[in-house]
């Protein structure tokens, strides 16, 4: 599936929740279901600095695709990371570079995108793009 197809899929999944609580409960579920990042990747280098929760992102380039893994000590942050991984992992570096992220807005999590919210979402997206850009030059 393309990055856009996955984004559309997520948007339609979230459409069934009319209560914000259910939405967050789902994100929390995603966060708790995502496997932990191997300890060897929970390094200072992989740490994305948000003010209140720690997020680690690890990327590998395999068979022309970028594979992302992540972890966070806060479960909501980890759930959002899980959504980002679903969208961006296993895509080509060039597709990631060219992609336009719209699902966050459409599922009503825009508040998390603000650079002042210090939850690391904006930094996570930036880091994903930087990895992809680096791999696209290989």
């Amino acid at each position, binding site marked *: 599936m393309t990055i856009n197809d996955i984004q559309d899929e997520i948007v339609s999944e979230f459409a069934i929740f009319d209560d914000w609580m259910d939405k*967050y409960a789902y994100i929390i579920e995603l966060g708790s279901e995502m496997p932990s990042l191997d300890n060897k990747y929970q390094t200072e280098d992989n740490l994305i600095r948000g003010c*209140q*929760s720690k997020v680690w992102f690890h990327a590998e380039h395999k068979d022309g695709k970028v594979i992302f893994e992540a972890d966070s000590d806060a479960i909501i942050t980890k759930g959002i990371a899980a959504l980002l991984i679903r969208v961006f992992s296993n895509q080509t570096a060039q597709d990631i570079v060219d992609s336009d992220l719209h699902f966050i807005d459409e599922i009503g999590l825009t508040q998390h995108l603000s650079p002042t919210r210090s939850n690391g979402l904006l930094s996570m997206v930036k880091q994903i793009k930087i990895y992809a850009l680096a791999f696209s030059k290989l």
Partner: protein
Amino acid sequence: MIDFNKIREDFPILQEKVYGKSLVYLDNGATTQKPKQVIDAITDCYLRYNSNIHRGVHYLSNKATDEHESAREIVRSFIGAASSKEVIFTAGTTESVNLVANSFGEKFISEGDEIIVSEMEHHSNIVPWQLLCERKGAVLKVLPFNEAGELLVEELDSLITEKTKLLCVNHVSNALGTVNPVKEIVEKVRSRGVKVLVDAAQSIQHIKVDVQDIDCDFLVFSAHKLYAPTGVGVLYGKEALLDEMPPWQGGGEMIESVSFEKTTFNELPFKFEAGTPNYVGNIALGAAIKYLEEIGIDNISAYEEDLLSYATEKLTSIPGMRIYGQAKNKASLISFLIDDIHPYDLGTLLDKMGIAVRTGTHCAETVMQHYDIPGTIRASFAFYNTKEEVDILYEGLMKICKIFGKLK
């Protein structure tokens, strides 16, 4: 008898809705909301007599100067200072501390001298001292606290040496709520020649603060935590000490005469107030204190104490609740964690329910290091908060526990 529910009408922002829900504002430790009386004082100044103070010969300037200096007198009387020369307006607690660190530090701290801070200080009462110690080759020492969050005051006996010049301690901890025995601390160190700076940023809005009773050398606080505007703070210092201290920032207002050969400085308190002060803010601080004095600080203390014990009992009944800061003497805030739920997750979900709390380290990382935790949730109460709001917080937390409980 004061009708504390009616008081809510004085604070227009409390009628606001967030996400369609009534705002429950429990982040008063970060900043307090402003009553109409304070907002009106600001508007009144801009509408009727705005003019730069201390320099004009004209009517407006004199009126603004009078209002400004009467605000200083209101502050003096509020904290029980001997003279209004001892009340210096600053931009906030942080600037007040930095003023002392630079001015007192310049004159009285030399290589090898020691400064003591407590383990439960806000960063603004640690970092300026670290910078000073670095500049001067002085040594920073730490007064620790116990598991309940109470300072180990008796350790001062061994901590203080003949090199100790200054002790900096908060009156109330912003992260734990502990009310520290500052009067007892001053008594203890006085005979050893140690000066004491008290950070009253978290006490001045909750309990009676009397600088002559405490007998501290310096006391600092911010106006915005005292129902007054941001960008205003106070430095109290004993007159004789302030007199000995050199000016910190240079500029207009703080001078007596200026020439390229020699500049002489204005007298207290103006020596430390370079440039045009935030006179509108300072005047509004006066209005805030007048408002609080009408209600009575003792009445506020009693109401908040009752609210704190209600909230403590209620929150303690939540399974997995851990309250950080269990001192016998506490101001009205509760710092806590539930099980292993990250404070950021708790804060995000409470926000969605219209409940404003603070999450994180509260600019007191050394406190979090003490307990080895990433941070806490802090619910901090003001006299306009109600037991109904505590119930809403409780229900909200129970709801969150349910979501997280399902995961197990």
